[in-house]
C-alpha cells in the first residue's frame, strides 16, 4: 500500500502532530482501518497483550491492535454475561457494529475472558478467529521450540488469509522494521523517564498507541519526526511526584484519566499497551526468523500479570521498574472485573508495602467519564507525599 494511512500529522508543528495522534486515538470510527480496507488491504486484528505482528506485516497485511474503545456495547452485551471487564465487550462490539472489518482475529489465553473471545467472535462473524497459545511455562527448555511451531502455524494461517507465501526474507525485513519501532519507543520512554516535563503522560500514550492503528513504517516515521521536536520543547521541570503506572497491560484507561494523572504526577514509566514494548531489545535478524521471534518473546521480554515465568517474579519486576525509572511512588491500577489484574494488585501492594514505596490503588474502566473523585484522591495522595 503506497498511500499514507495517517497523513494528518504530516507538515504540522509539535502540538499539531500530538493533536492529530490524540484525535486518531479517540476516533471510534477507526478511520485508518477503513482507509486500509478501501485500498484493498486486509487486516488481522489481534487482542492484547502481545502478538508477533511481524508475521502479519511480512504478509503485507495490517496488524491491528484490538483494544476495545469507549463505546456502548449495544450488541455485544447480549453475547456476554455480567461480571466481565469492559474491553472484551467493546472489542467484540467493534466487529458486530462493523466499525472495524477484519479478515482474521486472533486472541490469546491471557485470561479466561480473553481466551473465550475467539470462540464468541468466531460464532458471530464469517472470517476466521482463533487462539494463539503463547507459552505459560516460559522457563521450560522446550518452550522456544514449541512457540516456534506455533508461530509457524500462525504463518500458515496468515498465508491463507493473504493468499501469499510468507518467506523468511520478508520476515527478516519485517523484524527490521519492528526493531526500529522498538528502538524509537525505547527512546520515547527514555525521554519520559529523563525529562518527563517534555512529554505529557497522555501525549506519550497517544504516540505509543497510534502504532496499533497504522503500519509500522508510518509509526516509525512519526516517532522519528516527533522525538527531536519533543527534545527541543521549551518546557521546564516542575515539582511533581515521579510515579510508575502499573495495570494498563490490557484494558486501557481512558485518555482523560491518563491526562488527569499527568496533571499531578510525572508518569515516568508504565505498562500501557505493554505488548507494544514486550520485547525489550532488538530481535536478531538471523537464519531462522520465526525461531528468533519465539526466543525473543521468552528471553528478551518484560512482564505482565498474564504471563507465568518463574524467572520474572512480577513484584520484583515492578520494583525494578520503579528503580529503573527513578520513581518514588506507584499507581497500582486494575481494570474493573479484571481477574489477573486484581489478583496481581494484591501481590504488588504487599511488595510495595514491604519496600516502603508509597502507592495509590485504583480501578478503572475504559468508558469512565468522570474522574473528579479519582483526581481528588490522587491529589491528596500526592500532597501527602510532597509534604511528608
Amino acid at each position: 500500500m503506497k498511500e499514507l494511512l495517517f497523513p494528518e500529522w504530516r507538515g504540522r508543528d509539535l502540538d499539531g502532530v500530538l493533536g492529530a495522534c490524540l484525535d486518531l486515538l479517540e476516533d471510534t470510527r477507526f478511520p485508518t482501518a477503513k482507509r486500509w480496507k478501501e485500498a484493498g488491504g486486509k487486516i488481522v486484528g489481534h487482542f492484547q497483550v502481545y502478538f508477533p505482528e511481524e508475521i502479519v506485516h511480512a504478509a503485507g497485511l495490517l496488524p491491528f491492535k484490538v483494544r476495545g474503545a469507549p463505546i456502548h456495547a449495544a450488541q455485544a452485551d447480549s453475547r456476554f454475561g455480567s461480571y466481565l471487564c469492559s474491553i472484551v465487550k467493546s472489542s467484540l462490539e467493534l466487529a458486530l457494529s462493523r466499525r472495524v472489518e477484519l479478515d482474521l482475529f486472533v486472541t490469546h489465553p491471557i485470561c479466561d475472558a480473553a481466551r473465550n473471545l475467539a470462540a464468541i467472535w468466531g460464532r458471530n462473524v464469517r472470517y476466521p478467529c482463533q487462539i494463539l497459545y503463547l507459552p505459560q511455562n516460559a522457563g521450560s527448555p522446550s518452550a522456544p521450540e514449541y512457540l516456534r511451531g506455533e508461530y509457524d502455524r500462525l504463518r500458515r494461517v496468515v498465508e491463507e488469509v493473504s493468499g501469499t507465501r510468507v518467506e523468511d526474507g520478508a520476515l527478516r525485513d519485517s523484524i527490521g522494521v519492528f526493531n526500529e519501532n522498538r528502538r524509537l519507543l525505547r527512546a520515547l520512554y527514555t525521554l519520559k523517564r529523563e525529562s518527563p516535563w517534555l512529554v505529557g503522560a497522555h501525549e506519550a500514550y497517544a504516540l505509543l498507541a497510534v502504532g496499533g492503528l497504522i503500519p509500522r513504517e508510518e509509526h516509525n516515521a512519526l516517532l522519528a519526526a516527533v522525538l527531536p521536536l519533543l527534545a527541543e520543547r521549551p518546557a521546564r521541570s516542575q515539582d511533581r511526584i515521579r510515579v510508575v503506572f502499573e495495570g494498563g497491560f490490557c484494558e486501557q484507561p481512558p485518555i482523560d484519566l491518563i491526562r488527569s494523572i499527568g496533571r499531578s504526577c510525572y508518569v515516568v514509566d508504565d505498562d500501557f499497551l505493554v505488548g507494544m514494548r514486550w520485547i525489550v531489545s532488538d530481535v536478531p535478524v538471523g537464519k531462522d526468523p520465526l525461531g528468533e521471534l519465539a526466543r525473543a518473546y521468552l528471553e528478551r521480554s518484560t512482564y505482565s500479570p498474564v504471563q507465568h515465568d518463574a524467572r520474572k517474579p512480577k513484584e520484583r519486576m515492578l520494583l525494578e521498574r520503579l528503580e529503573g525509572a527513578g520513581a518514588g511512588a506507584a499507581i497500582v491500577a486494575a481494570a474493573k472485573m479484571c481477574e489477573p489484574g486484581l489478583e496481581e494488585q494484591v501481590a504488588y501492594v504487599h511488595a510495595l508495602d514491604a519496600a516502603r514505596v508509597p502507592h495509590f490503588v485504583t480501578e478503572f474502566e475504559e468508558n469512565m467519564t468522570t474522574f473528579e473523585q479519582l483526581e481528588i484522591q490522587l491529589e491528596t495522595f500526592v500532597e501527602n507525599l510532597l509534604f511528608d
Partner: protein
Amino acid sequence: MNHLPEQASTEIVGRANREGARLFRVWYDDLTRAAEEGRGAAYVFVMGSLGELLRAFDLPLVFPEINSLQTAVRKVAHEYLNEAEDFGYSPDICGYVKADIAAQRRDGRLPMGRIPRPKIAVLTNACNTYIKWAEIWERMYGVPVCVLDVPGSRSDGPLPGRGDRDFENDRTYVAAQLRELIAVLEGVTGTRFDVDRLREFLGHANRMNRGWNRVLELNRSRPSLFNALSDGTIYLGVSNGYRGAPEGAAYFDELVEEMEWKQANGIGTLVDERCRLVFVGVPCYPIFRRFTEFFTEHGGTFVNSTYLWFASGGSNLGFQYDLDDPIESLAEGLLLGVRDSMDSMFFPTNALARMVDEYDVDGVVFHPIKSCRTVSTGLADNRRALMERRDVPSLFIESDMMDRRVVSEAQLKNRIDAFFESIESRRQIASARHG
C-alpha cells in the same frame, strides 16, 4: 418393571452415593493425617491433575477447588471469602481462590478436616486462574509451581490428531514438560521415578476412564439413571480424588454395575421423570440441594452436563493409556483431556447439540456464575448459537458457586418455575397440533 428382590435393590441402588461419601471421608482423614504429620502435598486442579503420575511419588493430593466448594456446600464459604477480601482480594475474583487463601491462613483448617501444606503445585492452563492461584502459593510457601502448558483448540472445527503437524508440536511440548516435571518431582520428594509404578496407576486410570465414559453413555436411558447435578457431583469427586488409585477404578466398576442394573430394571433417578435437562456451567453450591430441588420438584432431571465433562479431568473421553509407552501416552492423554475440558467451555455448540439429540433433551439450563469467567464468559453466546441449531427451550440464570451474596434464591426459583411453565405450554401446543 421387573419385580426386584428387595435386598438387591436396597444394596445396589444408591450404593455409589454411599460409597462416594465414604471415600470422601477417608480422603479427608488421610489429608488431615498428612497435615498433622507435617507431610507436604501436591496441590493440583481438576482439569489435568496428573494424579496418575503424582501417586508414583507418594504425594497426597489436595484439590483446592474441591475444598473451596465444600465450604459453600457446608454453608461457611462467606467466612472464608470475607477473610480473603479483608486481606485485599477483590469481590470480583474467583471465590475458590479466596476460600483457599483463607484456609491457608487458617493453617489448612476446613470443615471437612485439615489439609497439608503444599510441597509442590502442579497445574495446567485449562483455567488461567489456576496459574494466578498457584502464584499465590509460590509466594506464601516458596514451593515449586509447575505449570503444564497444554495448548487447547485454536478454533472451532475438526480436531487435529496424531500425525497432524500442529498436534505433534503440541504433543512434543507436553511430553517434554512431563519429563521436566518428573525431574522436579524427584528433587522435591527425594524419590526416584519408577516407571512401573506409573504403569500401575495408569492402568487404574484406564479402568476409571472406561467406567466414566460408560456411565455417561448409560444415562441416555429413559428414565435417566442418575442426576448429573447432584449424583454426578459425587462421582466427580471420586474421579478426581481417586484418579489412578485402585479404589477409584473399583468405584467406577461398581458404578457401571449399579447403572446397568438400574437400567435393566427400569429404575430412574426420579419416580416420575417429566423433563430431561442438560446443565451448562458450574452448580450453585451455596444452596446446592435446594437448587437441584427447584428442578426435581417439577419432575426435571439433569441427564448430562458440561460439568461432568470438564471437571472429570478428561475421564469422560474414556482415553486408554498405552502402558507400553507410559510417558508419551500420558502426555497424549493429558493433551486430549485438557483440550476437551477447554472445548466444553469455548467450543461446545456441536457437542451440546449432540447431547440434546442423544439424550432426548427437553431443555437446556445455562448457569453462568460471577466467580468463574472460564466457564461463564461465553455462555450467553453459546446459548444463542445452540438455539439457532436446536429448537429446544433454554434458561439462562446467573448466580455464583461460592458467594451467597449474589445468589438470590427467590429469584432463581421464579425463573425456574417460569421455565417449566414454558416447557409445559410448548408441550400442550405441540400435542394440540398433533392431536
